[in-house]
Structure formats: structure tokens, C-alpha cells
């Protein structure tokens, strides 16, 4: 057990700590087929983020990933309504390659909205290595943009084998492993050791006590980022789990905001956000 730390005490006392902002780099928005979402809208998200002290939520609207007839318009509308705390990943569904090409071609029209791309390969049932994803990867590679991948251990679509292939192919894009190749923790650690542009994201990782301690013990905390799948999951719950892990306050700060600021630094100045 670690000693109760200043940061833990401060979060428990006040719920938010002004000198320790939180960047959630794995969020969503809107309703979803398999569960009741309590807070679906951007307005509700903005209220929650403000209350909890989240400086920035980077999300991809469920519609952009699951409803091609709505698509990325939902991302654009949400960010433009609440630009102080929201940015989006441009959602890529390679089942619709023409739409992928169009979304990538118009990416620059929405520099106020997008920070990178999101792939949900397990759901789309197309591997992250598939050529239909190439336009997004090519732009991410050229601009060193973040690409948030849903990743799950042993998946043929987004497991460790195909992650390794894209990491070998794209050395400049910032590859964020959503769920950290869940359950294949040793493989996730090895990917970070082998590729300087690969990062581990904590959503669902914190379901299992001890994994974060393993990550930090083997890798340090500079390549680990905070994410929640909001609005699926609660920010306070996830903040509490990171604070409960046997890691230092310095590690927590890296995870909560320092690493995200570096990742986003090439895209926009996150510190310039005016929201309090």
C-alpha cells in the first residue's frame, strides 16, 4: 500500500484540484445501442466536465462510428457548441471507403474541431491495417496526429499483432491504444518499449487492480494517458482508481495532464483553452 498522498487527499477533499487538470483523451457522445446513457448531449457533457475539473474531453460521437447516415456531423456540431472543453477525433468507418476519403479530404475545414482520428475496428470488423483506413493513417502520419484505436488483446482487428504492423508502418502518427490492448498486458508493454509513438490509455484497464502499477513499473508514466469512455463511465470513478494505484503523485500528474498536453501540443495549444 502506498502512503496516502497529497494529491489523493486534495481530490477527496474538493473533488477537483485546480493545479492538476484532467485531460480525458477517450470519450464519446450521444446514445448507444447496448446501454442506457445518462448524459447523451454536449451540453450535459460540458456541465459534467466543468464540475469535475476536466480541462478537455477529446471524443468521437457514437454516430460518427455507428451511424454512417449521421457521421462526423455530430462531432462538428458538438465541438462548435462547446469549444472550450471539447475536441473530437474524426471517426473512420472503413466499411464506407468513399466516406473515409471524403472525411479525410475535408479534415482541414475543421481544424477547430478535430485533433486526429478514431478507429473502432472490433465493431467495424475490419483490421486497422486494412487499406480502406489508409487515407486517415496517411494524414496522421504526415502531420503526426493522434489516432485513437479501440484495442483488445488477441483481436484480429485491433489486437497486438496488427497494432505492431501499423506501428512499424506509421512512425510519426501518435498511436493511442484505447484500453491498452486489454488483457494482453505484457504485449501492450512490449509495444510501448518497441515504438516511441505508441501510448497506453487507461479506460477499462482500471477494471483490474494492479495493471497500472505494472505499466508504471515497467515503462514509467510518460507514455500513459487518461481516458474514460465518457459518457459510459464516470470521471470521478476513474480519477479515484488512478489515485488508488500504488504510483507517485508525479506519475498521476503525468497521466492526468502532462502527457496529454505533449501529445496534443503539435495539434493545438491545449493550455490556451479558456474554460475554468
Amino acid at each position, binding site marked *: 500500500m502506498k502512503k496516502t498522498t497529497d494529491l489523493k487527499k486534495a481530490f477527496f477533499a474538493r473533488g477537483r484540484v485546480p493545479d492538476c487538470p484532467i485531460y480525458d483523451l477517450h470519450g464519446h457522445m450521444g446514445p448507444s445501442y447496448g446501454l442506457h446513457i445518462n448524459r447523451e448531449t454536449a451540453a450535459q457533457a460540458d456541465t459534467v466536465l466543468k464540475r469535475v475539473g476536466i480541462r478537455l474531453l477529446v471524443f468521437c460521437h457514437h454516430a460518427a462510428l455507428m451511424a454512417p447516415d449521421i457521421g462526423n456531423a455530430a462531432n462538428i456540431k458538438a465541438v462548435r457548441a462547446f469549444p472550450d472543453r471539447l475536441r473530437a477525433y474524426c471517426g473512420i468507418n472503413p466499411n464506407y471507403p468513399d466516406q473515409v476519403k471524403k472525411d479525410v479530404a475535408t479534415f482541414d475545414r475543421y481544424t477547430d474541431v478535430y485533433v486526429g482520428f478514431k478507429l473502432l475496428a472490433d465493431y467495424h470488423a475490419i483490421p486497422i491495417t486494412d487499406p480502406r483506413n489508409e487515407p486517415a493513417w496517411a494524414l496522421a502520419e504526415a502531420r503526426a496526429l493522434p489516432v485513437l484505436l479501440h484495442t483488445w488483446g488477441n483481436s484480429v482487428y485491433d489486437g497486438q499483432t496488427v497494432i505492431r504492423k501499423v506501428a512499424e508502418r506509421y512512425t510519426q502518427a501518435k498511436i493511442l491504444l484505447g484500453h491498452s490492448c486489454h488483457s494482453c498486458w505484457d504485449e501492450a508493454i512490449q509495444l510501448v518499449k518497441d515504438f516511441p509513438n505508441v501510448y497506453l490509455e487507461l479506460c477499462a484497464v482500471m477494471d483490474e487492480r494492479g495493471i497500472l502499477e505494472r505499466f508504471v513499473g515497467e515503462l514509467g508514466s510518460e507514455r500513459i494517458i487518461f481516458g474514460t469512455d465518457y459518457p459510459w463511465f*464516470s470521471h470521478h470513478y476513474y480519477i479515484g482508481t488512478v489515485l488508488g494505484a500504488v504510483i507517485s503523485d508525479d506519475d498521476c500528474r503525468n497521466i492526468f495532464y502532462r502527457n496529454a498536453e505533449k501529445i496534443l501540443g503539435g495539434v493545438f495549444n491545449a493550455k490556451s483553452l479558456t474554460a475554468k
Partner: protein
Amino acid sequence: MKPTFFDANLCFGRPIRTVYQPAKTAADLQRVMAHAGIAKGLVWHVAQRDYAASDGNRLLAKALAGRKNMYGCWVILPPQTDEIITPDFFRRMQRNRIMALRAFPDYHRYLLNRVVFGKFLDEVTERRIPLLLSLEKSSVTWPVVYQILAEFPNLTCILCDIGIWNSDRFTWPLLETYPNVFLETSLLSLEDGGIEETVARYGAERLLFGSNFPERYPEGAMLAIQHAAIPTADKKKIASANLEGLIQGAQL
């Protein structure tokens, strides 16, 4: 305001498959609780599930002796086999600070229904002894929960580990229909807005704090309740008062 936490979902002992730093003994668990800021616990020993309910129940009872901030849950099996449920069952519960029951019907290979548990669960209902059912720990599935509550509608039933994905579509109809159904919050607090929305619809009285240690970090569920957007009085109810009431109300 930091509420006093009374944890409805704590487990100790070394499981058949390893978990990260489990509390091997009740004393270890007390140290974990003290570190996290959990004042009291309703606990069980993992051998009750993994090895044998009979020996596991005995291990638990022995481990709880003299530990005033812990109460136990005994695991039940069908009364017909005489492995657990004997004529002096409730008296033995009282003697050993066992204030609630748990059941693992799938893992222990029986059916949790009126055919098997009719008279016994009628008495459990009458005595207001809580039955804890976990939706994650090889315990029960939602159809089993719905069946047992249809057959014993006044049973005091605490649903634990209610699922990683938001379970409102399963739990809200039960809260609406059965007044003695309660939700343990280790995974409800994982859901964004889970605590707030359930309190708004069904009242704070229906929720009981739980951490699901050792699988989960207690601090996640604790921070989510301590800073939920609900009145302080409701936080106190969820954190400890509701479970205190159920324990005091059980007639052994």
C-alpha cells in the same frame, strides 16, 4: 464532508486464480480498509465460492471472531443436501456475526428458485436477512434474478457487481417493482451519472456502497460517491446508513 463508508462488497482470502495483492486474511483486509478509509465491512471469504461453501463458511466465521468492524455473509446451497442449511442455521449465523447470505448457483451447480429454496427463502424473507447476488462473480445472470424475485417478491436482495456496461435497463424495473431490492454501488458508480440518476428516480435509500475489493480499487467508488451531485444526506445513506439499517433489521 467525508462520509463514513460501510462496504457491502469486500472479499478476502487467496482465490483459485490469482488477483493483484488480495487480502490474505481478515487482518490484512482490515489494514486495506483502514488505508482506504472504509470503517466497516460486510465480507466473505473467497474459499466459500472457489473451494467449498461448507469449509469456506467455517473459515469466514473463524476469521471474523473479535473483529467488530466486520460482518459476514454465508454462502448457501440447496437445503435438501444438508451441507449448509441445518435446523440451527439461523442461530449459528447469529453466533458468528453472519448477517447476510450469498449464493453462487451456476458455479455451485444448482437452481436458485422456489422448488429448491421454497421454505428456506420464505423464512429468510420473513427474517429480513439480505441475500447478496453478484452479476459478475460466477454468481447469477439477470434472468435468474428476475425469476427469484418473481417467486419471492419481498426478499431483501442486494444486487452486487451489476455490470461494466450501464445496467439501468435491467435494474430500474426491479427497483420499480420490488421494494426490498438494493443496488451495491461498485459498478453503479462506474457509470457516468449512475448514482445521480438512480437516486433521482428511486431514492438514495436503495443504494449501498461497495468497493468490490480485491478486484477493484476502492478509491474509485468512494470518490464517485463523495463527490456525486446529490445532497449530503443522501451520500451518508449510501455510504453507510442504508446498510446499517439492513443489518440492524435482520432478525436472527
